[in-house]
């Protein structure tokens, strides 16, 4: 009897201490995530300039959105820029396979390929803006060496998105390569040995052992890159400060930012930010479902 009382007192003490330890992150969550999120939902149904009180306007913002060519264009641009994700994944898997060999200098290469990942996106955007300069940039000067007259990359609607994709691949390569490398190193060797005994060639081994074994990493990378890709902002803001030629490089976050903080249409911007939030949620959800199915098919 007395021991249970003592234990429950100890438990209560432990509960309180644990509560104190987690209190700050929870308060931070309530104040800076939950409350702003709910407020965003509310603001999305209002006409609000951020200075005076929001005026309820029903679904007006959402209706305006689907009729807003700039919103649709920025959505299209955002998805277009994500085309770089599969390209980057293929290149980084190839690099990881190359580095997985036992040879000299792989640590050195790993470091070199990783440098863009840790570099600040602002500085990277500045130096690529300069590299893409139509007359004196690195890219066109190299193209000139082989006799190609390069375009004015960032001022041309046809090349601004490919230019941004190239930069994004360059910046992200090291990260996905590293994760793939870690995954490759944890694939048990005996799988390959058994497959080789069964007469499977290099391609078959790659297709039926390597690809399934690194699938969790591929999944992780796809989810994180899509979530990151839906929030591209810095390079647009720096490299094409006006949203690019004919709005052709404006992304959704760039447009939200412009509407909210330049045009003070905070209600409308909130509505777009809710759409972005739902999109991220949906993408994550779908990919988790797909991944679950994939794992079943491996078993």
């Amino acid at each position, binding site marked *: 009897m007395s021991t249970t009382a003592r234990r429950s007192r100890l438990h209560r003490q*432990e*509960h309180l*201490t*644990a*509560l104190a*330890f*987690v209190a700050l*992150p*929870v*308060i*931070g*969550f309530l104040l*800076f995530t*939950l409350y*702003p*999120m709910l407020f*965003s939902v509310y*603001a999305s149904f209002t006409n609000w300039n*951020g200075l005076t009180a929001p005026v309820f306007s029903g679904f007006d913002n959402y209706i305006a959105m689907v009729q807003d060519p700039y919103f649709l264009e920025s959505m299209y641009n955002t998805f277009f820029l994500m085309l770089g994700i599969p390209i980057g994944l293929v290149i980084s898997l190839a*690099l990881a396979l*190359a580095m997985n*060999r036992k040879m000299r*200098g792989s640590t050195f*290469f790993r*470091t*070199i*390929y*990783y*440098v863009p990942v*840790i*570099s*600040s996106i*602002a*500085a990277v955007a*500045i*130096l690529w803006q*300069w590299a893409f300069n139509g007359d*004196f940039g690195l890219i066109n*000067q190299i193209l000139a060496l082989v006799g190609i007259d390069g375009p004015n990359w960032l001022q041309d609607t046809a090349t601004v998105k490919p230019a941004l994709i190239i930069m994004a691949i*360059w910046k992200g390569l090291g990260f996905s390569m590293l*994760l793939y*490398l*870690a995954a490759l*190193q*944890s694939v048990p060797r005996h799988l390959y040995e058994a497959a080789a005994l069964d007469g499977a060639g290099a391609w078959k081994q790659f297709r039926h052992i390597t690809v399934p074994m690194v699938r969790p*990493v591929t999944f992780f990378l796809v989810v*994180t890159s899509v979530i990151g890709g839906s*929030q591209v902002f810095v390079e647009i*803001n*720096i490299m094409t400060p006006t949203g690019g030629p004919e709005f052709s490089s404006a992304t959704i*976050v760039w447009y939200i*930012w412009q509407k*909210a903080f330049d045009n003070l249409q*905070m209600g409308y*911007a*909130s509505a777009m*930010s*809710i759409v*972005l*939030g739902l999109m991220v949620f949906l993408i994550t959800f779908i990919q988790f479902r797909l991944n679950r199915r994939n794992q079943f098919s491996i078993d």
Partner: protein
Amino acid sequence: MSSQRVLPSPPPLKPERNLPDRTSSRAASHTKTRTRPSNSERKHRLGNLIVTIVLSLGAVVMVAPLLWTFSTSLKTREGVFALPPQWIPDPFVWENYLRIWSAGPLLTGIQNSLIVACTVTIVGTLFSALAAFAFAKMRMPFKNVVFLSLLAALMVPFPTLMIPQFTMFASIGWVDTLLPLIVPFIFGNIIMIFFLRQYLNSVPDSIIEAARIDGASFLQIFFRLIFPIIKPAIAAQFILWFMAVWNDYLAPIIYLNSPEVQTLQLVIANFNAQYAIQTDYPLIMAASFVALLPVLIVFIVFQRQIIESIALTGSKG
């Protein structure tokens, strides 16, 4: 006092074991190749040579923009527009690296970035580690519900929160100060809590129970027992977080207008906008290069920890 003694031997807790031991596997493969016929060894060496060449070409592509930046930063203003291009500056204008300090608030930018990044990461790491300890090792009602809701917050993109956050901070007059960049983050970082909690799962409960029986409080257990064990994990997460805060751009551009409060990333972006009009590219590139250097140095010094913890991120994710 006995809490020191119950410390388990750290090796089984080290995350490095997730990565195969490089030296031993290399040694193993060495002995293996030696027993193989020389034909396959020659093939292996030829393969290595080809791979090295391909990787070297790739490495050139990776560093080219950085070298180009550095080369530009040492040119004269006219040298930038020389045709044929100057691959190596002629003459070397090291003076550009002196001009940047008076050409804009670069120094205050560095100071502001340091203030923000240090405050956020040092205070935030402490609170995150305490919370991770509670989530991993302590009894608490609704513990998993609380943890999962914190995790769910990770799915909410910052742009969805930035407008209400901005008006919140505007209403208490914090716009154009560093506080909105610091205060929301010192409450702890959910990613860090997540990884430290994972890490703590491999620490046996018995050592904490033993310390409890010896009469240690949870705070004592945390500082004497847990903290030393999770120090490597904290260090790695700390560096990653520091670099993320240091490199942040969206939040600073929303809150900061005056030159004296701008962080380094904003300062160089303004350099870029301002001096591109004057076609002073060497100045822009010198400032950008200086902005890249601190993180580059941190990366090179802590390379091993950073790379290992990133690799771990993937295998846990």
